[in-house]
Structure formats: C-alpha cells, structure tokens
C-alpha cells in the first residue's frame, strides 16, 4: 500500500494544523525523496532552491574546514526541517547538510512555495509562523550550547 505525497506532507509535524487548502498548495511544490548515508542534501555556497522535511534518518549540518574535515554543528532527525536559506535572499546555503543514515525526506521546491506564499499572504503567514517556531527553537538551543553548559567553570 503506497502513501501519497499529500499524506506524507500532512503527517509531518512541521505542517501540523495547516488547512486543507494550504496543504494542497504546499503539496504542489513537494516531492518524496531518499538519501543514502553520506549524500549531501545541501552544499555550502550552492543555490538554496529546496528545503527538506525529514521523515526518517538523521542529517548532520556540517561545515568543512581544511585539516579538520567536516565539522558537525548539529544533527537533526525525523520531524525536523533542514534548510532555511530558500526563504531569504540571496537564497544560498550557508552549511552542508549530509545524510548520516538512510534518510527519507519530503523535498519542497523553495521558489515554488515562495511564489505561492507571495500570492497568498495567509499561506505565507502560516508557513512563516512555523518557520519562526523552528528557528526560535534552534536559536535558543544554539545559545544554550554557546554557554558551554557542562564545561568546567571552576578556578582550578
């Protein structure tokens, strides 16, 4: 029994609560995709024309440094979103995103969704609210990690 792309999009936590009409608009820009371990979902510097709703498997957000290889900044997994750069000019990826496991994801065409959101502010707001919620959670987590919580702060 196969699942339709519409059902996949509707069941992803990022899209929870979206109206049927809005969902239909999103589904029009979405396709199902898979990645093998090591595959890149996004490449630093490349044009950011797609973002991903992760369904299964883990994805690392990396940055490459000479002599250090790929440094993993964060890992994300099922229910998470990969990619924000499609939303704001100049639409260019800042980090790499790499599949750590076999990854199942919904790829959404950023330009397609931008156009639809631009034409339909209600959809735009609904999407932006979701993006903001995710971004805020990531920003807060990043700030917490900047604190070096578990570090040794003694004066030994």
């Amino acid at each position, binding site marked *: 029994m196969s699942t339709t792309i519409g059902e996949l999009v509707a069941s992803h936590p990022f899209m929870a609560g979206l109206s049927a009409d809005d969902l239909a608009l999103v589904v029009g820009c979405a396709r199902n995709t898979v990645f093998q371990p090591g595959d890149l979902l996004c490449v630093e510097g490349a044009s950011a024309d797609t973002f991903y709703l992760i369904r299964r498997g883990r994805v690392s957000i990396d940055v490459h440094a000479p002599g250090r290889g790929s440094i993993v900044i964060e890992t994300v997994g099922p229910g998470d979103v990969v990619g924000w750069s499609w939303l704001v000019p100049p639409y260019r990826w800042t980090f790499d995103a790499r599949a750590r496991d076999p990854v199942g994801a919904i790829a959404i065409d950023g330009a397609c969704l931008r156009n639809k959101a631009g034409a339909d502010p209600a959809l735009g707001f609904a999407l932006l609210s979701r993006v903001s919620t995710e971004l805020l959670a990531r920003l807060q987590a990043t700030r917490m990690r900047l604190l070096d919580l578990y570090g*040794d*702060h*003694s*004066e030994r």
Partner: protein
Amino acid sequence: MAKSNNPSVSSKVQLGEVVVLRLDGLDSLVARLTALGFETKGPVVRDGAVVPGPITGVADLPVGVHDEQAPGSYRLTRGDDGRLFDWAVGPGSWKAEFFPPSQEVWRAVKVGDSMQFTESAPLAPLAIVGARPCETAALDVLDRVLKDGAHRDPVYADRREGAFVAVVECATPASTCFCSSMGTGPGIEGGFDLALTEIDDARGHRFVVRAGSDAGVEVLSVLAHEEALDEDLEARGRVLDQAAARMGRQLQTEGLASLLARNVEHPRWADVAERCLSCANCTLVCPTCFCSDVRDTSDLDGTLERRRVWSSCFDLEHSYLHGGAVRTSASSRYRQWMTHKLSTWWDQFDTSGCVGCGRCIAWCPVGIDITEEAAFIAASDGATPANAVSKASAP
C-alpha cells in the same frame, strides 16, 4: 501597713513556687552551683561591654552598670545604684558557650592500616546566672537546629541538656530591643531552672525567684530565701510593665514570613546593599545564627584535625560552588540573612529565627535596622525594581 517578709529560711520550695532572694542569697546561688560542679558563668563587664564570663559571686556581676544602645551604637554607663541587671544584652550571646566559635570536632592518627579518631571531650556542665529571656529563647531556636533535628550535635546537645539556667527578667530594654514583638520577653514563663526578677524599691534590693525545674527546686531549697508576698508579685508585675513600655522597637510579625517570601525582588534589597558593608557583625552577635565551616588541617607529625568554626552568610565564600559564589552581591547576601531569619527559618525549623534581642541593630557599624527594613517592605509590598524606576522617573 505593708507586711514584712518572713525571716530567711532554707526550706523545700515547690515547682512553680515564688520566693524572694536577697543579695546574699544570690551570692549563695552562685556558690552552690559551683559547688555542684558547674562551670558557673554570668554577665560580666569586659572590654566596655556586658558579656558572658566566669563568676564567683555577686561582685563579679555588672554592679551599677547601665547601657545606652542605638543603631550602630553601644555604650556602658555607671550609676551609683547597686542594681545588677539594669542593662540590655551586649555583643556576646550565650550561643558561644554551647556552640563555640571554633571547636575541635576530632583528631585522627593513622594506626596500622586504618585511622583512629578521638572525638573532642565533652565540656563541663555549665550554669548560667543572668541570661535574659530573649537569650533562652535563642537557645531554644538553636536547639531545633543542633539538637532536635534528624542529626544531634552531641557536644552542643550534651552541654545544653546538662546546663542549669537562671534567667533574670529584663527591666531595662534598650532602644534597639523588640522582644515583646517576638514573644520572647521581657518576662519569661517557662524553659528555665530559675527565673529571677530584680527589684529595688522601698522594701529593699531583692529578687523574686521562681523554680521552673526539679534542678531549680533543688538548688533553691538549700538557699536562704523568704516567702514572696503579694507586694513582691506586684513589684515584679510593675517591672515587666515598665520594661514592655520602654521597648525601643517593634516588629510587625503577622504575615511577615510570606511578605518577605513574595518580595524577593523588592528594590529595598538593593537600597540596603548600598549601606551594608557585608562585615558579618550582625551574624556574629546574633544569638541564633548557626552557620559554620568545617575545616580539616594536618600537623607535621601526621595528626589530622577537624574543626568547626563560625561562618557568615555575608561571606562571599559561604555560597561557594565550584566555579564561584552563588550570592555575589551584597543585596543577595543581606536578603539571604534577613529572609532566613524572618521567613525561611519557619520553613526549615518551624519557628522565627529572630528573638528580638536587637544586637544586629546596635552592632551594625552603619546602623541597619532589621525592624525598619521589614517595615519598609511591608509598606511597599509588591514593589519591583522596574516599577521603582518608573515611579522615580514619573513627572
């Protein structure tokens, strides 16, 4: 025409019975306690203050000594009267007699492949003649911390339980005193072996004495005493009434614990921090402050020693946690001290941590007054730093 007291006799008194002792009787009391093997102590004048010290008789007591106390101020004066207890409490409290400022806990040496510990020897039993009601109240507060909790401090508890306490009711509270607000004075109705009230009127210089324990009964029975007359009881009542009337300060205790608990962000804490020197005087003179440090040292001969020494919540190190102190600001340390005394002490020990002795007011070098701070917060309940600023900047 006033009746005269019956001639002095030594006869068995009953628990709760009231008798009269003259000065020679008080002398005999001190001698009797010492003869019973007690280390007998009472108020003495030392370094310009009335403090606990060894006594052998009435002559060692602060004869004709009076005091003038105010925020940040304590002075003794001398009168030509022969009264012994016409002063309010000085900087030294009886706490130190039970919970010494520095105390060896144990010594240890390595023996074979283990250690051998010697715990500090018990102190001689103590008899106090001339503790104030607020001071026995303070010892009752300390009992809850060091004696009656889940863990009994044996040195403190043994000395406390073996102590003989003759209280002298307070006739002349200082301007810094507020024991009547705290229900701890100027009179006392229980928790003593003997309770004395000093009276010096037309019928002579004498003490109205009540026995509050079997030990008190035993000691009093062998002293030359007189039957107390109605006039003596009335005289005692007048002393206590006058004392209550001249109480210099008051503290509104109703709802105080919750008032402070809900005002932890009150701007007054920052205000008091501007004045507070974090000198810890208040905690050192306080008869209930119990904080201590545990310190280990080793001698060159390999002997290890553990000591317990007084510490203070005004000390930055007090709240040290790996990485630094938790309470870094003077405002948080003053708040800790005052909210502990008047609020969280109730949570921890089901009593107030303050007995109203006023020492922290007199001995604060800048005269910070716990009653004034409490009253200020009560009058501005709910203020926050934010609304204090907006008030200040309002046209």
